[in-house]
């Protein structure tokens, strides 16, 4: 591993220790007096109805799916951006085609109502 990643590793260790330490402290200092009422889900004081693990709208799936696709686009854009000055117009045309094709997908999703929330 290149040496410049060592500090990152160290910082990760420190952050984990900090977070765990905080939780540990609270479990040491905090009181423990559970009651059934306290442990039931909070629904503005009303008794909970049904289970929380209900299905939610497929819209969330569509958003995450589009996110993946455009995330890939970003992944391709970054190396493109750093060598853009060498590629010049040629690179621009390549990327424009790429972006346009993906935008067709975005437009399709848009048209199909995948971006609407009622």
């Amino acid at each position, binding site marked *: 591993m290149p*040496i410049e990643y060592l500090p990152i590793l160290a910082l990760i260790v420190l952050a984990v220790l900090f977070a765990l330490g905080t939780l540990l402290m*609270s479990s040491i200092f905090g009181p423990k007096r559970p009651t059934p009422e306290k442990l039931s889900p909070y629904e503005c004081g009303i008794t909970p109805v049904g289970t*929380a*693990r209900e299905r939610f709208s497929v819209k969330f799936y569509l*958003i*995450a799916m589009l996110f993946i696709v455009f995330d890939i686009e970003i992944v391709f*854009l970054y190396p493109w951006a750093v060598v853009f000055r060498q590629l010049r117009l040629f690179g621009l045309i390549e990327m424009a085609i790429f972006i346009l094709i993906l935008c067709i997908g975005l437009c399709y999703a848009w048209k199909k109502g995948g*971006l609407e929330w009622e």
Partner: protein
Amino acid sequence: MFEFIIIMLVKIAVVFGALLLTVAYLTWLERKVIGDIQVRLGPMRVGYHGLLQPIADGLKLLFKEDIIPAEADRTVYLLAPLVAIIPALISFAVIPFGSQVKILGRTIDLYITDVNIGILFIFAVASLGVYGIVLAGWSSNNKYSLLGAMRSSAQMISYELSMGLSIVGVLMMAQSLSLVQIVKAQSVVWFILLQPVGFLIYLICAVAETNRAPFDLPEAETELVAGFHVEYSSMKFALFFLAEYANIVTVSALATTLFLGGWQGPLLPPVAWFLLKVFAFIFLFVWLRATLPRFRYDQLMGFGWKVLLPVSLANILVTGLIMAWR
């Protein structure tokens, strides 16, 4: 090697401490500023002008009961705040906050580390932050927290896209993913002048990414009680809170680095410039919260996908066109 490790550890300790301090006092700062804007005083009781308020808050949370809901998935419930806070704390590793100083005859770089994929590191870490929210919402076994978590994560990933795209223009000009190189590329002119549209998109996305007003919908108290962390209490809640504020600091520092010339500036020492810019940006955050009303959720998602995403793509192509033509 030994020396390297010592210097490294010192730097990490200083940055980590400074970050925590900043985050703690950010809560105080926010309440004070909003108080001023609303012609109130804000916290006044603990210490001079409430200066000890964050410490008091922290201690209070530490001694609160840690409730785990009955139907909750205990392991994930415990894991979620950890997953939220750790990424928030480590992205500072690659942000440069000054050029170099000479201490005891040694030249010390004022950043924890400089990697050649710096900006990608930050995005990679940031993309993990969403798990904290999803897991918290799911494990709580509460309708409100699940809905809040889904909304919040959908919002985060939506705006993460535009955020990633908004800085491509900067990368095209800097020709590097290393944040140090990006800062150095701004020695003549800050990228905010060359990439105004990119900066604007970044700003909007930064606010949305940190779930702040006017994009604080996922945790809109009036609609969803408190969003994904409704069931959390005690220090676990504090960790979510810390993570949110740490993220504010991170996006501000990133904005400073990418668009505002980083540590560079006349007269004042570099670190001072860096802090000045970061705090100016943070102030903007607080100001926005005090001024703007909240978006509706459909507006918010629509805005992200139908406006920001196309505009940021267009920004990239226009930037490319201008650069290729010159």
